[in-house]
């Protein structure tokens, strides 16, 4: 029976192994898991070594070889969710379903799992149930959901009240709320669709690049590479086929701003991508949509269809002879690393999401070896607006070196979590008061790959030369244990490292373990130097942005919250406090049915 489904799905994608992600995500959904026999069949159909198929499946957390339940409940275990009671919600699910996380009910109906940030920190605790998002969970709600699922309810039926805006659209039907708390001049401004695109095709690509340079637009993902320059490189690179990719894999814990753009302003994004296609001379556009946002896929596809009908995509766009461009959606499957542009390209090519060796850079050889420009959702939107209103207009917003606005996803200990469109240059203090944060002890700027800062730095500004950020802001008040939070973020990096390079794969585990000892009161003063030196080596030697920033939760708290560490570590007295004789003996004591005589006083 599986043979038929598999050959059908493979042929939908022309048995093309570079579409492996689509093949395996579709099959995983239909079959509940892709077993060894299925892997062989896929390998045969696509002419791919079986181990390569297995490699791809094994990489993504939403895919598996084992068959899972009809419904998979993925409870978000992000720091913000945990602050808002996710652990209790998990207990309710475990109790009601009679299984532990990682298990499937005996009747094969429900699998319970945990997953890192699903982009719902403004309405935490949240869960992903198949592709349906359930938000603002309480213990009562969780109980109801679990009981419904036990009774065989389909995931979609769990949505009772629809969210605002397009969340209520027939093609979305989601309970997610946008929570747009502040509208700015660029992204959430009143405007007319496609004015930028129409202006663009009247110009030459070179003059658009000039506009972008005048605007001083820099990438909104966090790294801040000048967009005009990136597009100029990609345009001038050798190669007939070029590619424009939108990075909609916002996986940085605490960020959810692209979710809102995708829900409310997808046409602005498509417009920006189409302009990108025009500028660099690309006919292929891809939106890499994180698997967690699969609930938006049908809606986005419909929007793309409408654009095709209106000749805003396709051949000779808007009557411009030879301007051909189209966009497809590439769904991810649960891998933070795929937010790294070269990993994202690997994933689009149907491979495991390993970053690629640079050089060659994506602008030279990216997607399927074609020159490729990868940009953030917000960057494309800004491009469309710049084409509409001019580079000078844009350059005057924000600060001299960081023009424009920045969407910030603010969550955690504040009264008004949501998406804020601020001009660059806004200080942490301004942001805190606007979001209704009180008694703030620490702020995570830029997600765990950014910095955890303390009061001394609250007068700093969000911009490329002070606090650069992709947009994730998490607020912690004075009741929070900063080191436990840092530990949760280290756990996240251990989980999400692709494992390609030594320092990130092995180093993060060691960092996590040492911090865990400290948090448990089993650390010593020498551990602080150990963490610092190890963290620096991971930062220095890692192959991509993940490893180069993964020690940040530790390094930034060592810098900004040293006293929290010092309060926990013991003076070095020659004995390793992490060694626990009771634990080391407990197994033998159980087996042999006697207690230690030597270490009796400890029992």
């Amino acid at each position: 029976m599986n043979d038929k489904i598999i050959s059908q799905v493979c042929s939908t994608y022309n048995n093309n192994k570079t579409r492996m992600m689509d093949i395996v995500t579709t099959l995983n959904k239909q079959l509940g898991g892709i077993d060894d026999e299925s892997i062989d069949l896929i390998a045969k159909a696509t002419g791919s070594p079986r181990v390569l198929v297995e490699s791809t499946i094994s990489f993504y957390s939403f895919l598996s070889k084992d068959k899972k339940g009809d419904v998979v409940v993925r409870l978000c275990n992000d720091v913000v969710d945990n602050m808002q009671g996710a652990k209790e919600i998990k207990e309710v699910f475990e109790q009601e379903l009679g299984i532990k996380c990682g298990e499937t009910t005996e009747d094969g109906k429900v699998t319970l799992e945990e997953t890192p940030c699903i982009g719902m920190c403004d309405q935490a605790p949240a869960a992903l149930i198949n592709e349906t998002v359930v938000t603002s969970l309480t213990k009562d709600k969780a109980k109801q959901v679990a009981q419904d699922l036990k009774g065989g309810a389909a995931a979609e039926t769990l949505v009772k009240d629809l969210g605002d805006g397009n969340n209520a659209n027939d093609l979305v039907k989601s309970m997610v709320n946008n929570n747009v708390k502040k509208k700015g001049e660029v992204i959430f401004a009143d405007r007319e669709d496609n004015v930028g695109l129409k202006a663009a095709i009247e110009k030459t690509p070179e003059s658009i690049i000039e506009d972008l340079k005048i605007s001083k637009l820099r990438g909104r993902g966090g790294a801040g590479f000048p967009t005009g320059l990136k597009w100029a490189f990609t345009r001038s690179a050798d190669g007939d086929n070029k590619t424009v990719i939108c990075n909609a894999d916002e996986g940085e814990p605490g960020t959810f701003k692209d979710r809102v753009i995708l829900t409310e302003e997808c046409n602005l994004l498509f417009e920006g991508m189409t302009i990108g296609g025009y500028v660099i001379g690309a006919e292929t556009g891809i939106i890499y949509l994180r698997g967690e946002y699969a609930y938006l896929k049908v809606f986005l596809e419909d929007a793309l269809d409408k654009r095709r009908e209106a000749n805003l995509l396709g051949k000779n766009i808007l009557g411009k002879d030879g301007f051909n461009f189209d966009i497809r959606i590439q769904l991810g499957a649960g891998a933070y690393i795929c937010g790294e542009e070269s990993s994202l390209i690997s994933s689009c090519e149907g491979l495991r999401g390993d970053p690629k060796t640079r050089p060659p850079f994506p602008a030279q050889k990216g997607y399927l070896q074609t020159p490729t420009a990868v940009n953030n959702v917000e960057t494309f939107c800004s491009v469309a607006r710049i084409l509409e209103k001019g580079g000078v207009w844009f350059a005057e917003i924000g600060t001299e070196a960081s023009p424009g606005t920045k969407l910030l996803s603010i969550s955690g200990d504040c009264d008004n979590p949501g998406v804020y469109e601020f001009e660059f240059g806004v200080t942490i203090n301004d942001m805190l008061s606007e979001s209704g944060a009180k008694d703030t002890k620490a702020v995570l700027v830029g997600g765990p790959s950014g910095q955890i800062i303390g009061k001394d730095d609250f007068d700093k500004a969000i911009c490329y030369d002070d606090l650069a950020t992709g947009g994730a802001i998490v607020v912690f008040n004075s009741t929070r244990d900063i080191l436990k939070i840092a530990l949760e973020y280290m756990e996240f990096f251990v989980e999400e490292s692709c494992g390609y390079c030594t320092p990130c794969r092995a180093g993060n585990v060691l960092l996590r373990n040492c911090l865990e000892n400290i948090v448990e009161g089993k650390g010593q003063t020498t551990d602080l130097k150990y963490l610092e030196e190890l963290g620096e080596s991971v930062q220095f030697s890692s192959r991509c942005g993940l490893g180069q920033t993964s020690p940040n939760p530790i390094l930034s708290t060592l810098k900004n919250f040293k006293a929290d560490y010092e309060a926990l570590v013991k003076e070095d007295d020659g004995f390793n406090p992490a060694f626990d004789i009771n634990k080391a003996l407990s197994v033998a004591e159980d087996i042999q049915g006697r207690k230690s005589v030597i270490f009796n006083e400890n029992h």
Partner: protein
Amino acid sequence: MSEKTIKFKIDGKEIQGKVGQTILEAAEEAGIYIPRLCHLKGITPHGSCRVCTVKVNGRPQTACTQPVVEGIEVENDTEEITEHRKNIIDMLFVEGNHFCMFCQKSGNCELQALAYRFGILAPKYPYQFPKRELDATHPDIFIDKNCCILCGRCVQTSKDIDGKNVFEFVGRGPEKQLAVNSKANLAGTDISVTDKAAEACPVGAIIKKQEGYAVPVGKRLYDIKPIGSEIENK
């Protein structure tokens, strides 16, 4: 390949490289050894072990993947970089189960040799004691994942030189491991003992059977002279 030379510096010393060469290759020709593990001549560089990380105009880059560029200043043998390299080697030792005392590769193992070269007496990190598998199903070749450092040399050699796809990685992060192109095990693949992939392993993770301990202690590759001295004393 063009014969045009590219001038650049390593630790202040002027080097002449060729167009298309990596920093590691140009250094090697000039008698400078840049420590490395995952690098193997003739295959696509993997850039995963990170041991060859140097500073190029102040930025960390792997010498095995970075092409030479006119005028760059490369730092290689500095205290800072050596410290990072030692840390990476320590990480690799504690991440796996390396029992040198009975490993067939001991004395010829590149990981061990690098540790010797750097004078490492013991890793500074706690041993992780992971559970790893063995695969002895193949009549001529043995896989011991306890030693595997995930350098990718076997994966790439099988692809680039043998024209096969015997090996690949599965899983991610600390769970990442070597897998073979067969539902069951190595015996189910098309690997042959004459494949270059069978001898690509820098450590004792892929071993040819019936060849163990052929060279007596004292005469093995790195017993007397450190790894890299063959380049430095050219």
